[in-house]
């Protein structure tokens, strides 16, 4: 392993990521290493001042935390939105706007004691009534807030006292703490909620309690945030305990990889998110720059095989597809070793990841061919594909165009070529529309759907992929009762330690039955000038967050903008 000059800790980060699959560390260790990485690199006392300009890949289409479903929008939204509690890399929770909390033994009542010194940036105090106003707002279907999916079992919020609030559920929900740590259930000023203005549009009208204040939004160009000088209520895991160090942060929307990289290398921005493999050498180990890779805790990029109709109903066909190619090889050749291949659809840095799956499946072409022979796909057509009763062995992969990114379509194409050659399987990639996916999902007629999900509690992620209300909502009567039962049980088990064996069993069964073929564990990359310190990732978002902890070396503050 090549040694990186920055620090030993940094080397460890890289080795964890590069060697992730061969030499899996426990999630706690690996994420722990990452956290120390930034600390060790950035020895020195933070200084206040300066402005940072950050080139990001995606302009949020909606700036409302409750309504947005776009993963990359949350990097920006986190500037002005705080949560009750913060999720840490090891899966535990840290205080944030709530000082302490308590879950009743029956899992129905969640009581939070709130900090009493928090105000929204419009001056409104943050109190129990504000918590209630936000949760009730999200729960009301008439507000069409997508975050409502986190409040499936939410019944009501009771204001116990100005700074104590009780959230009452109709059924126990083990996902509740993680959901409350999500930016989607973060808090906007009650005045903002009732203002009647549409909050998707962004701008200074969006008021939260966060470390930065939304100053101005220029569509198609930039969004600018200024420091909230009163802020002292950051999450427990933050290094900073007071106001943010930076005076302002400007996000610039630069969708092209090469252009973002050029903007950073020529000093026109201080920080970029999204670095393509071929640009990494520009920043990694390069004089004046730093390169960081985030955790991969949320869903891995996975082929979900619909097992309720067509050839997908035959477990032998699904298993043949799962084992009929070398996941390692296709992922490495496309991503040049920057991302690890996946073993489960839950990411390797997630505490809920089933580590026992590592090395248990895939790349067994002889067995895959035997399975297909056994299933009766014995003849071949003139193009070399297997056939049975004159039908070609073919499954369609419907990939909605809006979700195609990071060369994921090319990845599927290389799998397509591999399974054709190895086992005579026609994996037919079709780039479709969001509407096409919505339609086939509604009637259950989709075949293979490749996807990753927004971060959420693992039980919810598994529900969305494999449960009866997720991708299978159109055909819920045909779903596997074992897996659906396990998912329901996991949701009902509020003790997170007792829940883990259930989550392990769900992942195990999904892979054994080849309901899923996990491909790779995506992660966020950031590159920055080396004068910018204490950059980090948020465990719940699984991505970069706001720049609350970040600061500029004193010599560079004046020239930063």
């Amino acid at each position, binding site marked *: 392993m090549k040694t990186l000059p920055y620090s030993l800790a940094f080397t460890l980060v890289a080795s964890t990521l590069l060697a992730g699959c061969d030499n899996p560390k426990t999630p706690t260790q690996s994420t722990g290493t990452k956290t120390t990485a930034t600390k060790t690199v950035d020895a020195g006392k933070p200084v206040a001042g300066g402005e940072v300009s950050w080139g990001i890949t995606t302009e949020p*289409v909606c700036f409302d935390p409750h309504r947005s479903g776009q993963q990359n929008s949350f990097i920006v939204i986190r500037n002005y939105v705080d949560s009750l509690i913060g999720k840490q890399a090891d899966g535990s929770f840290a205080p944030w706007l709530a000082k302490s909390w308590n879950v009743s033994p029956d899992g129905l009542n969640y009581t939070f004691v709130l900090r009493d010194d928090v105000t929204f940036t419009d001056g409104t105090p943050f109190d129990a009534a504000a918590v209630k106003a936000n949760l009730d707002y999200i729960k009301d279907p008439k507000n069409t807030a997508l975050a409502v999916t986190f409040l499936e079992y939410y019944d009501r919020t009771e204001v116990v006292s100005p700074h104590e609030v009780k959230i009452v559920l109709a059924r126990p929900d083990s996902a509740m703490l993680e959901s409350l740590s999500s930016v989607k259930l973060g808090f906007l000023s009650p005045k903002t909620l009732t203002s009647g203005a549409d909050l998707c549009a962004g701008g200074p009208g969006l008021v939260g309690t966060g470390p930065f204040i939304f100053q101005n939004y220029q*569509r198609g160009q930039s969004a600018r945030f200024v420091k909230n000088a009163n802020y002292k209520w950051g999450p427990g895991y933050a290094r900073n305990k007071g106001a943010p160090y930076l005076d302002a942060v400007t996000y610039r929307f*630069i969708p092209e990889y090469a*252009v973002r990289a050029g903007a950073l290398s020529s000093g026109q921005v201080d920080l970029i998110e999204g670095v393509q493999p071929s640009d990494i050498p520009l920043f990694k180990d390069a004089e004046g720059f730093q390169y960081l890779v985030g955790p991969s805790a949320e869903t891995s990029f996975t082929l979900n095989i619909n097992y309720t109709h067509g050839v997908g109903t035959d477990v032998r066909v699904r298993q043949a597809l799962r084992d009929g190619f070398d996941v390692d090889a296709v992922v490495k050749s496309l991503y040049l070793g920057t991302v690890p291949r996946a073993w489960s659809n839950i990411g390797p840095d997630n505490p809920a990841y089933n580590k026992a799956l590592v090395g248990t499946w895939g790349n067994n072409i002889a067995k895959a061919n035997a399975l297909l022979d056994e299933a009766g796909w014995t003849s071949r057509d003139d193009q070399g594909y297997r056939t049975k009763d004159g039908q070609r062995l073919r499954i369609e992969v419907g990939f909605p165009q809006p979700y195609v990114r990071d060369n994921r379509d090319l990845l599927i194409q290389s799998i397509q070529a591999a399974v054709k050659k190895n086992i005579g399987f026609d994996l037919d990639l079709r780039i479709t529309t*969001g509407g096409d996916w919505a339609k086939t999902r509604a009637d259950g007629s989709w075949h293979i759907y490749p996807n990753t999900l927004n971060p959420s509690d693992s039980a919810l992620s598994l529900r969305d992929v494999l449960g009866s209300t997720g991708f299978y909502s159109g055909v819920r009567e045909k779903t596997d009762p074992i897996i659906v039962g396990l998912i329901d049980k996991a949701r009902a088990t509020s003790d997170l330690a007792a829940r883990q064996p259930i989550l392990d069993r769900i992942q195990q069964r999904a892979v054994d039955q080849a309901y899923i073929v996990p491909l790779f564990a995506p992660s966020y990359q950031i590159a920055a000038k080396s004068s910018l310190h204490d950059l980090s990732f948020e465990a719940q978002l699984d991505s970069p967050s706001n720049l609350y902890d970040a600061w500029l070396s004193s010599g560079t503050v004046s020239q930063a903008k």
Partner: protein
Amino acid sequence: MWRAVLTRILSSLMVIWLSVSAAFVALHSLPGNIADVLAGDVEYPGLREAIAAEWGLDKSLPEQYLDFLGRLIEGNLGTSYIMRMPVSDILASQLWPTVQLALSAGALAIVLSIGITLLTAGRSLRLRKVASLFELVCTSTPVFWIGILLLMLFSFQLRLFPVAGAQGWRSLVLPAVTLALPTVGLLSQVLRESMEKVLEQPFITTLRSRGLSETRLRSGHVLRHGLLPIITLGGWLIGGLLGGAVITEKVFGRPGLGTVTLNAITSQDVPVVLAVVLLAAAIYVSISTLLDIVYLFIDPRLRHS
């Protein structure tokens, strides 16, 4: 005369109405229920119904169409499903950067191609060969690639111009050049060919025999004749510039209609797409009307017929 003008206006409105209606039908024939698309992967009892009610998607298609036409007559373009803002506000904030880019690129393209043609038409073979090679490279290189190359040289290396955004003239230079080059390639090819044809005409010999200087001959007489095919290409030119602006805006991270349109189409944001179609149809119709008038100025023969 007035009758002709009236017919012209009515047929323009007809074109606009037909294109918007066609777009409406096309958008609604795409697979998938729009409420499902808007809900994305979120499954929640009552959510889809609420979304459908919020946007009037629970009504029948003919009703939705009539609602849409009714709003249009009132001058209301509706609200974006995704951005949840009045479409007119979105267009108003994004139109100017695109127009600015397209106009400066268009002007640059015309000036450059006229310059190239005046210098090369009917001149030495070597000069013409160099020019046609340049033109061929310009027309066959993707806008995207030209943009990246210009950025690498002038922004990342020489640091003369900013990489992205739309602040001040400096940020307009590279995108305008990027967008202009392919147009320059095509325009100067067409222009040179037509000028060379004119140069072979007998009246040129007459003019030369009267002792007119080559420069005055070319700029005063030949150019005027040679320009006619360019005017015919005017509609294409506008279309190319607006279309190319989409890609240019993306490469340079500039605000503009391009990104908005692209996102609206992929997310089936019907009101925004319809408004963009309406706008594009209106621009085409007005440009072609305008060009018909410009013909009259350039070619006196048309004034009398």
